[in-house]
């Protein structure tokens, strides 16, 4: 890991004889202009470089040449069902039950495949109601889910508030709002929302929801034990509920430094089915354990999802013989996302910029902007790592103060706190 910000520091001064000193002084006056020019030259160089790197359009030579693979599996029941529903909806676009059902299926598909296009398809299904100030409750809940997925947290919370006012028994709205609060680091508010699930939903869902925010707000051990107990007593839970609970247990165990327990729950959860969030969390765990080879095995076929590609590239850098093949691809993806005006990838871009581009100052700027939007442990961690790399105690200070207020228990964050305390 490169921990230097030296390129941002002024050039070292030496004692020089008169003429050299005079011209150095002159040069220093022009330093701003010269760096400006240098920057311009680099930009021009980059634009030429990227033009060279970009392939030119071509005409394939054979009709059999495969250009794109849409699915990894042959036509499955899910795809056929979605097509059928889409066709039906196109005939009667005002059919609310059908539209919400299709939107739900798209969102679910989006989670499994990690393809954001499905969120757009879901939004399209809801188009007749999308821009209404007070759409039907089912549409509001789905709109909130889609809005939070593009980090429009304020918009999502507004929708959910509206739902809960009209229908205080809407479990989906409570759990979605709780998770938004948790992502933003508002743990007391998250716990309050989770508690409302007690009489609406199952015990496992309620306790999983609660343990997520409680474990980050100073009650990690209690949350862990409680969730473990509830999980063993509910053999009838659905696969999704178990997946959520086990992923949560694995994450709490990781934060508590209980590596073996974490490993056990990650493996149990992975056995339940494909899930890109879980894959990323397990890859992070393996990276912290310095087990890059296993990450490569786990993610080598997952290069389409940006977040997973990032972890693959991080692992490849840690191999005994480091590989850099995916760094360029990631660079292009972040550039494309910036061109589009998206800011949802700031955490990943900060991690990429710090650990794969070795540009701590740029990484710190990204991490700080990201921390204003979301405050999961990973968001806090990359900010502290970048601040440490830049020896920037001012940047770290508000984060450390906040962490102390929240009483968050996380061995990785505690190690960083310690290092910052010593070095900054």
């Amino acid at each position, binding site marked *: 890991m490169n921990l230097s910000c030296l390129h941002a520091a002024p050039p070292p001064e030496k004692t020089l004889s008169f003429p050299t000193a005079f011209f150095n002084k002159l040069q220093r006056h022009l330093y701003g202009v010269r760096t400006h020019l240098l920057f311009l030259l680099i930009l021009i160089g980059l634009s030429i470089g990227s033009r060279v790197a970009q392939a030119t359009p071509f005409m394939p030579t054979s009709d059999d040449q495969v250009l*794109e693979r849409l699915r990894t599996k042959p036509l499955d029941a899910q795809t056929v069902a979605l097509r059928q529903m889409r066709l039906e909806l196109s005939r009667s676009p005002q059919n609310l039950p059908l539209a919400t059902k299709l939107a739900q299926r798209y969102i679910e598909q989006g*989670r499994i495949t990690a393809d954001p*296009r499905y969120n757009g398809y879901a939004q399209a299904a809801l188009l007749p109601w999308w821009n209404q100030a007070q759409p039907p409750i089912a549409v509001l809940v789905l709109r909130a889910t889609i809005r939070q997925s593009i980090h429009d947290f304020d918009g999502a919370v507004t929708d959910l508030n509206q739902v809960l006012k009209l229908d205080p028994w809407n479990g989906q709205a409570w759990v979605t709002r709780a998770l938004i609060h948790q992502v933003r680091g508002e743990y007391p508010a998250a716990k309050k929302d989770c508690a409302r699930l007690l009489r609406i939903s199952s015990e496992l869902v309620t306790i999983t929801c609660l343990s997520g925010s409680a474990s980050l707000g100073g009650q990690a051990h209690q949350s862990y034990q409680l969730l473990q107990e509830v999980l063993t007593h509910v053999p009838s839970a659905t696969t999704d509920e178990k997946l959520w609970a086990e992923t949560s247990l694995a994450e709490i165990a990781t934060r508590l430094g209980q590596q073996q327990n974490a490993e056990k729950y990650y493996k149990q959860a992975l056995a339940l089915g494909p899930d890109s969030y879980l894959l990323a969390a397990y890859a992070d765990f393996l990276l912290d354990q310095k087990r890059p080879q296993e990450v490569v095995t786990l993610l080598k076929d997952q290069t389409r999802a940006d977040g997973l590609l990032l972890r693959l590239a991080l692992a490849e850098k840690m191999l005994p013989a480091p590989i850099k093949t995916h760094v360029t691809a990631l660079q292009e993806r972040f550039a494309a996302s910036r061109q589009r005006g998206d800011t949802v990838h700031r955490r990943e871009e900060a991690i990429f910029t710090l650990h794969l581009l070795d540009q701590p100052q740029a990484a710190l700027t990204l991490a700080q902007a990201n921390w204003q939007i979301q405050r999961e442990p990973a968001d806090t961690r990359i900010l502290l790592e970048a601040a440490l790399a830049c020896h920037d105690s001012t940047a770290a200070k508000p984060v450390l103060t906040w962490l102390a207020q929240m009483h968050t228990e996380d061995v990785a964050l505690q190690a960083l706190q310690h290092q910052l305390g010593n070095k900054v």
Partner: protein
Amino acid sequence: MKRYLLFCLSFLLLSCMALPAFAHKPSDSYLKLNVQDTQVQGQWDIALRDLDYAIGLDSNDDGMITWGELRAHQSAVTAYALAHLQILTNQTLCPLKPTNYLVDNHTDGTYAVLRFVATCPQKSDRLEVRYQLFFDLDPQHRGLLQLTSPEQTRTAIFSPDQADQTLALAENPVVQFLQFGREGVWHIWIGFDHILFLLALLLPAVLQRHDKTWEPVADLPTAFKNVLKIVTAFTVAHSITLTLATLGVVQLPSRLVESAIAVSVVLAAVNNVYPLLLGKRWVMAFVFGLIHGFGFASVLADLNLPKSALLLALVGFNIGVEVGQLVIVAIFLPLAFSLRKSQFYQQVTVVGGSVMIGLIASVWLTERVFDLKVLAF
């Protein structure tokens, strides 16, 4: 009730957990438009994945799109895409005609590449683009436009909320004029050779030669007159050659020009120590100013001048050079005038300074003649 909610809960439960940070690249298309007079050359890269969702490309439903399948859908793809794009000038449509059908690899998959040409009824300084591709199927789709005209390149993003955009093809002339003016100022300030030449000529301007030694001039008007003569001669001369070279009337190889500029600095410096052209420094300023003008012209040429705005750029740049030059003079004259009587100024500054300027320029001369690199500036 509770049972229903439970069901409802479970299938959206995890969509909250998986934040989009783990996502693929969302759906984008890349539209490049190149405007030349009334013609617009277009290249539109559209993801095969999106086209398949819109009109179905995978004929045999095996989950793979082959070139054969894409080729079979050429007219459908072209018609579908071009039906969702309108280009207008002065509220009149420019009809779109497809010219080529290719593919390209982007970071997130393969794209169909549609090339087309739009012919507008009349020339305009604004282009209206109405973009509607995929917005009905995926409101999170974005169209990323790169618009190139002889004057400039600019970008825009199309979204359902901003589907119609009118884009100016040329920068506002005033802004453009100021931009070139700024370039001119920068160039004289960072061009050490021009500054040193000017300084070598100006250093003795507050003095006069008397019995082989320097004596201070009596009053400010005399000093001012000396400076004015030199600066005017330099300005007139380099303006002449800058104009001639930029308009393509005279062309000189740049190595020759750069070497001659170095010679001019050497001679101007030597003249202060062993006077060759006593009291005729304005002549020197004029003669060598002609050479410096060619130097300025090569900088201006590197800025990729728009042909339509050549005169504007030329005048803007030249005025910028003069302004930059006047700032140097405005700092130099009061300082030199107030120090002119001191021994330090007459001996160390004028003679010592000139020797140093001469030395540096000699190194430049060697560098430029033999194509070497010694100095960092």
